[in-house]
């Protein structure tokens, strides 16, 4: 058990104009934690995830990675990044996988994966290519390394995006509804890759609607409602019949036949 958590967010508040999306959310993650953020649309879970790497800037609250506090200043009424150098360095240790994959369309799969290591981490090209090919092998895309994103299926694009995120050798990986934009047949291949990463000890924070994944892979579940943490606990605690009523209502409401089958 480490003394200080790898990632710590304290009392995050975020408003868009007059609309308050996050009303004081906190989170702590230790090495190897796989935390699932669940909640209805609009509960603020994606916004909260994006506050971790400052793609959204909280109006109030603190973000700490490895005991280092991210500088957020206020300018003319809204929050701005305090130190671009610091946030660039921190972001290179926190990889994000997006719902819409966000691969660079003008680059091949391989070029997407080596872009970060070569240009941000300044590692040598040959070494980066070697590692990238190993990662593409790991996510099952070795034969598509020279394809462009437009030529890939959604599941393939997302796996390429995961390889790109892994190439940065992150300390924590952030997943923003990674399978929400995928057909049901393609969801499985992405979840398999994510499960493998979790089993290898990667620290992951996952915003998802995949109850099955949350239940069987994560070691902590946080249920958000209306911009606040409603309840949290281990999957056993949350999904049991004695678990929190609001969470059970949420799971029950979002369960259709397919969802129920997956959750088992």
């Amino acid at each position, binding site marked *: 058990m480490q003394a200080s958590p790898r990632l710590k967010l304290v009392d995050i508040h975020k408003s868009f104009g007059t609309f308050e999306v996050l009303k004081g959310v906190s989170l702590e993650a230790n090495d190897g934690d796989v935390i699932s953020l669940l909640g209805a649309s609009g509960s603020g879970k994606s916004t909260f995830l994006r506050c971790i790497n400052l793609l959204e800037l909280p109006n109030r609250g603190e973000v700490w990675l490895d005991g280092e506090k991210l500088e957020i200043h206020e300018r003319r009424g809204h929050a701005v990044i305090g130190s671009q150098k610091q946030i660039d360095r921190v972001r*290179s240790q926190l990889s994000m996988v997006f719902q819409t994959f966000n691969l660079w369309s003008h680059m091949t799969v391989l070029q997407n994966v080596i872009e970060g290591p070569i240009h941000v981490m300044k590692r040598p090209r040959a070494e980066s290519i070697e590692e990238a090919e190993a990662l593409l092998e790991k996510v099952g895309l070795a034969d598509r390394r020279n394809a462009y994103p437009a030529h890939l299926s959604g599941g393939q694009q997302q796996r390429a995006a995961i390889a790109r995120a892994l190439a940065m050798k992150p300390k924590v990986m952030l997943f923003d509804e990674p399978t929400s934009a995928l057909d049901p047949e393609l969801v499985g291949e992405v979840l398999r890759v994510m499960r493998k990463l979790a089993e290898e000890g990667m620290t992951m924070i996952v915003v998802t609607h995949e109850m099955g994944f949350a239940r069987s892979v994560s070691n902590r579940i946080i249920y958000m409602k209306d911009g606040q943490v409603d309840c949290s606990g281990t999957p056993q605690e949350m999904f049991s019949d004695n678990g929190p009523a609001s969470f059970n209502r949420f799971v029950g409401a979002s369960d259709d036949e397919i969802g129920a089958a997956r959750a088992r």
Partner: protein
Amino acid sequence: MDIHFLAATMMELLSAAPLTLLLFLLSSACGGLLALVITWMRIAENPLLSSFAKTYIFVFRGSPLLIQIFLIYYGLAQFDIVRGGPLWPYLREPFVCAVIALSLCTAGYTAEILRGGLRAIPVRDIEAARSIGMSGFLLFRRIIAPLTLRAILPSYSTELVLMVKSTALASIVTVWEVTGVAQRISSETYRVFEVFSCAAVIYLTLNFVIIQMMALLEFKLSKHHCPMA
């Protein structure tokens, strides 16, 4: 059809074609560089910079190029401070004034083309780059510039074609490019149709080459759109 006359006219016009080409290349290059600066100012947070850029773009898109050429060649010479100044040896040259006017004009149009290209970049691509720690010039060089370039190629090829045609206006201020020479020959021989037809062929040829080059560039940069090989 007087082949001899056509041939002789064509030869004489072709001797002026290098000047047309030089006008085009110089103004496109200078105008393009200026457009980068203007676009940067246009999207800056500083209200002084963006207002200046907006005004510049409005003035040079909103007034006829012909009047801009007159103002710079004939108009500036009206002022003692210009005639006595250090730049006068250059500002009295019709060629220099034509290049200045053409550059300032194309910079206004190109700045808006660039701004359109920047807006066309999906926010997703930029967020992905930021999320791995890219920012500033690196982000611009690796992600923003390549995607903007691909987005503006169709519009910019139109702008280049317009530039080739705009060089014809330099003839008004005594630059002996193709149209100027054509006007002289036609006023000497009164064979307006043949002379200007030859001139038109030269401009069409120039534009054909430019359009083909831009199409080739577009093709090379669009491998990611093509159907799978």
